[in-house]
């Protein structure tokens, strides 16, 4: 019995930092130069889907604007910076050929229905709970590696939010 309790305590002790770490990982902010990325997430893809969107908040603490110009992930054939727009009930998605400007001292939110990073040519669809490694490329701040937690299929908010 005592041995069992001890094992249990050990397991709990081992598991606690693990869950804390996973949680931490999802909520963590990533910084390169003046650019900080927070609240980054993606979502699980329905089977047969070959594309996905990634979302985040990008803050620029610098005194000059920067641009998100590209991205890559080992999980997708290619990645692009896109804008989604509703135009008289018609959904239009376009690549931002010049990237997405992050104003000096300001921030830009990538969210469903607006800007997103688009993953294309995904062979092994993202599953809920997975962490997707993504490298963002900024014109001035350079490359920034982030881990995007995958929320449920079709969800509209960061998986860390419970409301």
């Amino acid at each position, binding site marked *: 019995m005592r041995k069992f309790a001890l094992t249990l305590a050990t397991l709990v002790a081992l598991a606690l930092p693990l869950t804390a770490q996973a949680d931490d990982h999802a909520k963590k902010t990533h910084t390169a130069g003046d650019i900080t990325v927070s609240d980054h997430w993606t979502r699980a893809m329905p089977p047969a889907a070959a594309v996905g969107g990634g979302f985040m908040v990008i803050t620029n603490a610098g005194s000059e604007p920067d641009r998100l110009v590209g991205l890559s992930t080992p999980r997708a054939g290619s990645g692009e910076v896109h804008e989604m727009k509703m135009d008289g009930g*018609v959904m239009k998605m376009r690549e931002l050929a010049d990237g997405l400007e992050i104003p000096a001292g300001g921030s830009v939110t990538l969210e469903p229905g607006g800007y*997103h990073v688009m993953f294309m040519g995904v062979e092994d669809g993202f599953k809920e709970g997975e962490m997707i490694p993504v490298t963002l490329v900024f014109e001035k701040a350079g490359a920034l590696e982030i881990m995007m937690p995958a929320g449920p299929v*079709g969800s509209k908010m960061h998986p860390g939010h419970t409301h």
Partner: protein
Amino acid sequence: MRTIRWTAWILVVLVAGLTVAVLVSPNIRDNLLGKPGTGSGVAAIGGAFTMVDHTGKPVSDRDFVGKPSVYFFGFTHCPDVCPTSLYDISTLMEDLGPEADKLNVSFVTVDPERDTAQVMSDYISPFDSRIVGLTGTPEQVSDMTKAFRVFSRKVNLEDGGYTMDHTATIYLMDAEGTFAGTIAYGEDTETALGKLRNLIARS
């Protein structure tokens, strides 16, 4: 003064006569007010179509008569709006519970080149199992989108692939297949739920 009074009286008689004619004659009424149902005043939305469902079975508009129907258009190479709409509709159907059995709910592809019946079947599998996926030949799909006044257009992407601009509105049809309203993309849940309950109650 007398001329003005006479003119006024003639006008009154004319207006009264026209009103009676409109009320009595179905032809004049339909021309002025639009025929109920077929709507000669407003562009009719919906009509005949033949497609293939996600199990590979040929279907037509006749298969959807008898129950009110919900149609929305999209494609599987869609990172944002389409999975969101499918998720939202699944949530609405869950909220309606067994009442949702009284509806036909269809997700119609605007990208038949890539969206085969098998792809549609896989794609809709995480969502409410009552949702039917519809695809077909490019002609069948283009006929159906035209009938529903749905805009769709292929747009090339940098990497060599393409995306589809398309109408994201959800279409509501009554049990006879007549257009009964829309739910806009992103419309709030309570309003959308009210519209669906209304549609079920009316049929």
